[in-house]
Every structure is written in C-alpha cells, then in structure tokens.
C-alpha cells in the first residue's frame, strides 16, 4: 500500500469552530461526533472486536494517535436500526445482513486459517477480505447472501461514510464541513474561496 500524505498538512477544519463558517447547529452536530462517541449496545464483544480488526484493514489509520471511531457508529446505526432507506435485492435487512456477515467471516476464517480473523497477519487479513470482495467465499458459511454486495455496498460504504463524516477526516481532505451557514462563492474548476483550505505542494 502506498503511503498517503494529506495535501493539507497544516489545515484543521476545527479552526472554523468560532468563525462565520459555522453556526450553533453546525457546532452541535460536529460536537456530537467528536465527544459523544456511542458505547457498545448492539454488537457482541466478539462481533465488535472482529469488526474493529476488519475496519483497521479497510481504513487503516497508522498516522493517527487516536483513530477516527468507526465501529461505535456502525453499532449505533444497528442499535437504532437506522437504515439508509433502500436495500439491494437479495440482501437481508440491515441488522440481519451485518450479523450474518460477521458470523460468516468469523466462521470461515477459523475454517481456512485455523484461527480467528483478528489473529491473522495483515497480509492474510487483506487476502481474505479480497476473497470476499471477489465473491470467492464458501457458500457453506454465507448461504445465499450476495457476498460482493455485502462487501461493497454495506461494509465498505458504511466504513467510508462514517470515516468521512468526522472532522479529522475533513481536515485530511481539505473539506470545510457543512456548507451552512457559509457556503461557496467561487464554484468553477480550480477556484478557491478565501475561507477554503489551501492545498500545499506535496
């Protein structure tokens, strides 16, 4: 994996906290993401640690002392049963899909490697996740779950969605947070408003 370097090394979106870019509504919403990280309610401790290990491979955060929390928000979604409002044909409802998917991963890893996913080497973990992505898994564990759909549309999408909802991730990609109250004036290609992040030459 190539090393990632943010084009915005000195940019911190949280510097906008008291600026006209953000208002009370913004501060409240972003503040919740920063401070009110949910506790485990829905997943079992085993499911939680397995998901932590999977997330660490899908969205590695080696350069962060404290990683952006992802698993707590997936758990929160499941606990509240907040579904996205659509479901792919053949996919079970959200809660069942997650539970069945995690169970299948746990069981298949024991079967293939003789030890749980969490204890595999990073290479084996990546290798196994790739077989899920390619749909090359054993139906003995997955029954009729559309495996590739589970990987791309549920697992990967939720992980990325939650990661990029966090202000630390916004700083990394130079995103200014909610365009409310202050939005964008210069909307053409390669145009930047004075209150937007400026990319460094990297």
């Amino acid at each position, binding site marked *: 994996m190539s090393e990632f370097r943010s084009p915005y090394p000195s940019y911190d979106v949280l510097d906008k906290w008291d600026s*006209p870019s953000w208002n009370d509504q913004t501060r409240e919403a972003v503040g919740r993401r920063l401070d009110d990280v949910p506790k485990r309610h829905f997943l079992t401790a085993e499911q939680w640690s397995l998901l932590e290990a999977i997330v660490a491979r899908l969205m590695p955060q080696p350069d962060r002392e404290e990683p952006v929390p992802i698993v707590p928000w997936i758990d929160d979604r499941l606990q509240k049963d907040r579904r996205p409002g659509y479901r792919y044909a053949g996919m079970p409802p959200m809660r069942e899909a997650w539970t069945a998917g995690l169970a299948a991963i746990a069981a298949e890893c024991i079967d293939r490697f003789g030890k749980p996913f969490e204890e595999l080497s990073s290479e084996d973990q990546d290798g196994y996740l790739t077989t899920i992505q390619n749909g090359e898994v054993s139906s003995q564990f997955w029954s009729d779950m559309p495996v590739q759909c589970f990987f791309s549309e549920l697992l990967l999408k939720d992980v990325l969605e939650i990661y990029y909802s966090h202000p630390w991730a916004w700083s990394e990609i130079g995103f200014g947070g909610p365009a409310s*109250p*202050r939005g964008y*004036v*210069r909307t053409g290609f390669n145009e930047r408003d004075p*209150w937007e992040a400026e990319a460094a030459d990297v």
Partner: protein
Amino acid sequence: MLAPREPEPSHRPLIPVAAATLVAAGGIGWLLQRAWKPEGDINHRAAQALSAGAAILCASVALDSALEHYRGKFKNRAMFVGPTMALLGLGAATCLAFRPDRAKDRLPKIALIAVGATGLIGMGFHSYNVLKRPGEIDTLNLFYAAPVGAPAALTLAGLYGVIAGEMLDGSDFVETRLPQLTAGLIAFSLLGTVAEAGLFHFRGAFQDPAMYAPVTIPPLAAVAIGAAALSPRAADFAKPLLQATAVLGIAGPIFHAYGIHRNMGGWYNWSQMILQGPPLPAPPAFLGIAAAGLGLLPALREREH
C-alpha cells in the same frame, strides 16, 4: 384529496423596511440636492450635473467591478482594467464637476474618452465570456456569466463627461441639438440600466416587492426625459420621475444591505454575502443617470423661449 397548500405567509417586515429605506434615501437625496450648488449659466449647470452623474456612475462601476472581478479572482489580467479605468473616470469627472473652469484641459477629456472606449471593449470581453460557455446565449449564462451590459456604464460615463466638456467650453449650446441628444442618451442610459436591474431582479425572482421599483419608475423617467427632448413642457413630468429614480439609486444599497442581512448567516457572514448577496454598489448607477438628467432639464426647458 389533499387541499391545495397555501404558501406560508412571509414574516419579513417588508413594509417597514421599505418605508424606512425610502424615507432615509429621500432624506439623503434632499441633502445632496441642497448641497449641490452649481454656478454659472444653464450650460454650466447642465455640464456640471453631467460630470457629477459621470462621477457617480464611475464610482459605482469601480466598486462593483472590483468586487465582482475579485469574486472572479482576477483570473484574466484584463479584469484589472475595468475597476482601474472606472477610478480614472471618477477622477476626471470629479475634476470637471468641481473645477469647471479647467474644462479646457486636455487631460480629463482624453481620460474620459479612454474610459468610454474601455466600456465598449469590456462589453466585448463580457460577450465573449458568455459565448464561450456551453449554451452560449441562454438565461443561465446571462444570469451567471459576465454581465454583458455592465461595462456600458463606463461608456455612458465617458460620453457624459465628454458632453460636459463640450458644454463648458464657452459656447451656448441651449439652441443646438446637443441638449436634445443628451436627453435621448439619458433615456437610453436609464433603459439600459433598467434592463440590467430587471435581468438580475428576475434572477432573484422579485422575492421582495421592492425589487419591482427599479423596473417601473426609471422606465417612466426615461420616457419622460425622452419626451422632454421633443417637447420642453414634458420636463415638468420628467423632474419628479427623475427625482424618484435618484431616490431609488440611493435606496438601492440600503435595500441590498437588507438583502445581505436576509441571506444565510447575514452580515456576520459578510465575506460570502457581499459577493453572493445583492450587489451593494450597483444601484447608484440610477442616481448618476438621474442626476445628469435633472441637471439637463433647465436646458431642455429653456428651448421653449
């Protein structure tokens, strides 16, 4: 069956805002008119009013184009030309308005001709900006690309200044066709500015009824001063209409300041809204044109005798 939904009534204090704005603008206009003491004969007074009008037009263009070109990041170096030439025009026209005795100087005249030419070239640039975009001449580009009509204000200012210079050079112009032609030019200026305001107020969906004012009163003033060119008696109708137009030119920035307040984040978010909200420096163009017209009316009236 669902009952048809009535739109939610507006809670904006539109009537008090409009009333306060118009009273304030009327007061400022009255003070300006009192402070305005041109000297000399009818020729001189008309010339000075034309110069003052040119100066106001140039000031409006200088601020407005600086703001809008800043929004466009001065992407093209030529975008510095508009505001710079507007400042030059402001200087030359102010010089004519306050030092009419120096009208024979060549410098202000050359400057004003250059400013007028800049307006024509600017319209060329802005037309190119519209035409190079996908869709070419469509409402989207007329709304959001460079405004085609805006640089024309510089041309008008240049013309006003040049005409003022001619009037100040000592000859009696009341009996020539110059006042009539100038009245026609002013009528045309008003209609052009109305078209510009109309386009952008339409873009803004006339969401405040006050936005109809600059597309109703100035066209009447244009017709009246046009008529005054043909029949001196029409000048009596033209005067109140031009005064009303001038008041609108003063009221405009106040209304626009309220518009900025109404936008997301209001004045606290000024760094965005001064660019994205209604343009503060644009409406005084009406004041400039109306001032020129008001100054010209006595010369038009005089033709009767």
